[in-house]
């Protein structure tokens, strides 16, 4: 019972934190874009413009809501709902920190430790595309439909390379549970040491799955106006944009968990920290690593120009997919030579 209450609280906390981080990621993105383009960025609402996300949120809620009369109303509403739902579902399997002891009993800072954690992530990611597809189709707009078609083609293509990139990792760690992967990295080196190529492929695919530049073809504004969310207004548009930032937060968390030691940090045992203090530091370290990758996502967006659609498909199928296969093969050979296969 105690455990159930704790897990329920953790679900709420993780959800609220993802929302908060996503809201401030929009602020971060605008500030970073401004910095890279030698501008000031938002600075009117509050000190340094820190209240900007709240102002944006209020604006989104207050705006007039338009549902095109020709569109399918239910599917039109369902689109952003699915996008938001799948975005907030992935946080469930991520280990946010070590053990927290409250009143003598210990609780893990992970909502569920599924023994198929990685597959769960891939499963949720693969259904995430429906939000975009349904929304794009229900808008009954050529540009929206084109955006939706692009999104589905792109996500399907990069999911394959992404899944194959993870197989190398699963081979070296021998588990699909995210918690065990983090523990193994505490005992040895971070997985990036064993799987540099796998990480690179996974990271590139993450950009494509998030529909972020340089892979933001589905909402390519020079060709498609707004892409799949052209017809959306008010908070429905807000949901789509919000879902993208939550996804960015969660994929950074997944990258950190899989390849960069999760919540563990180097020389952890030498610091002499223990108990709840250690857990707190672990959570902060984890968030620090996650924020670095979120910064990296934004940095790339404002640095690299967008691909053409054929280049994108070429990269996905003819470069990343063979590379991922080579990675699996090479990992197998090295493990065989090491004698770690038995």
């Amino acid at each position: 019972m105690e455990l159930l209450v704790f897990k329920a609280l953790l679900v709420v906390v993780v959800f609220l934190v993802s929302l908060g981080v996503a809201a401030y990621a929009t602020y971060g993105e605008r500030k970073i874009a401004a910095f890279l383009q030698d501008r000031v960025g938002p600075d009117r609402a509050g000190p340094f413009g820190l209240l900007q996300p709240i102002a944006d949120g209020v604006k989104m809620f207050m705006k007039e809501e338009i549902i095109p009369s020709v569109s399918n109303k239910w599917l039109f509403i369902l689109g952003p709902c699915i996008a938001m739902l799948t975005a907030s579902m992935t946080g469930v399997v991520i280990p946010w920190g070590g053990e927290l002891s409250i009143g003598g009993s210990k609780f893990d800072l992970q909502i569920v430790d599924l023994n198929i954690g990685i597959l769960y992530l891939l499963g949720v990611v693969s259904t995430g595309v429906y939000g975009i597809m349904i929304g794009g189709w229900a808008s009954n707009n050529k540009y929206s439909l084109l955006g939706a078609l692009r999104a589905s083609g792109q996500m399907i293509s990069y999911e394959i390379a992404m899944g194959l990139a993870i197989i190398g990792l699963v081979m070296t760690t021998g588990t699909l549970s995210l918690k065990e992967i983090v523990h193994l990295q505490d005992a040895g080196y971070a997985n990036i040491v064993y799987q540099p190529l796998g990480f690179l492929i996974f990271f590139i695919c993450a950009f494509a799955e998030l529909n972020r530049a340089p892979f933001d073809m589905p909402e390519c504004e020079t060709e498609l106006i707004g892409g799949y969310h052209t017809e959306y207004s008010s908070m429905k548009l807000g949901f789509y944009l919000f879902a993208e930032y939550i996804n960015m937060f969660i994929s950074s968390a997944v990258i950190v968990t899989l390849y960069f030691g999760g919540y563990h940090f180097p020389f952890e045992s030498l610091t002499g920290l223990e108990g709840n203090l250690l857990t707190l530091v672990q959570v902060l370290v984890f968030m620090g690593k996650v924020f670095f990758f979120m910064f990296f996502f934004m940095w790339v967006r404002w640095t690299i120009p967008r691909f053409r659609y054929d280049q994108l498909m070429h990269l996905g199928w003819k470069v990343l997919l063979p590379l991922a296969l080579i990675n699996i093969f090479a990992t197998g050979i090295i493990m065989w030579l090491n004698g770690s296969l038995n």
Partner: protein
Amino acid sequence: MSPSTYVFWFLTFVAIISALNVVLTKNAVYSVLSLIVTFFAIAGHYFLMNAQFLGIVHIMVYAGAIMVLFLYVIMMLNLNETFETNKDTFFHIAAVVSAGLLMVTMIGAFAKTDIQMQAMADNSNIGYLEELGKVLFNEFLLPFEIASVLLLAAMVGAVYLSKKEIKD
């Protein structure tokens, strides 16, 4: 009734209603969406039977990949309710006859089989990935490899068919 029984009935209800909706609705996009709901309900059944791997792969492969492609094609064709071709009587009769034959075959097959209900052991690990891998790569290695060759053949065939026009 235990909580899992309630979940079972709920999933069954969802699966049957959405499966019926697949064939009854006239809009092709609704059909595909209903089919996706059906797949999720069936994946839920797998989870109830402790077959986690099968359930999640079911979602990933069917709901996450195959149905996306279905939806992709249907959206591309942009079929809608007004696009209802007038099928002639011959088509209707052929459909009824073939469906009837299928039903007769199914009834025949099920009538002959001796259905034995086998209760699954509680907390059995049989659906877990480790167990599945061991069984698949020891006992059923040959069928598994043959199935993969079959898939490879289908893939090569698909590539060949799509390349055909470009070659000459």
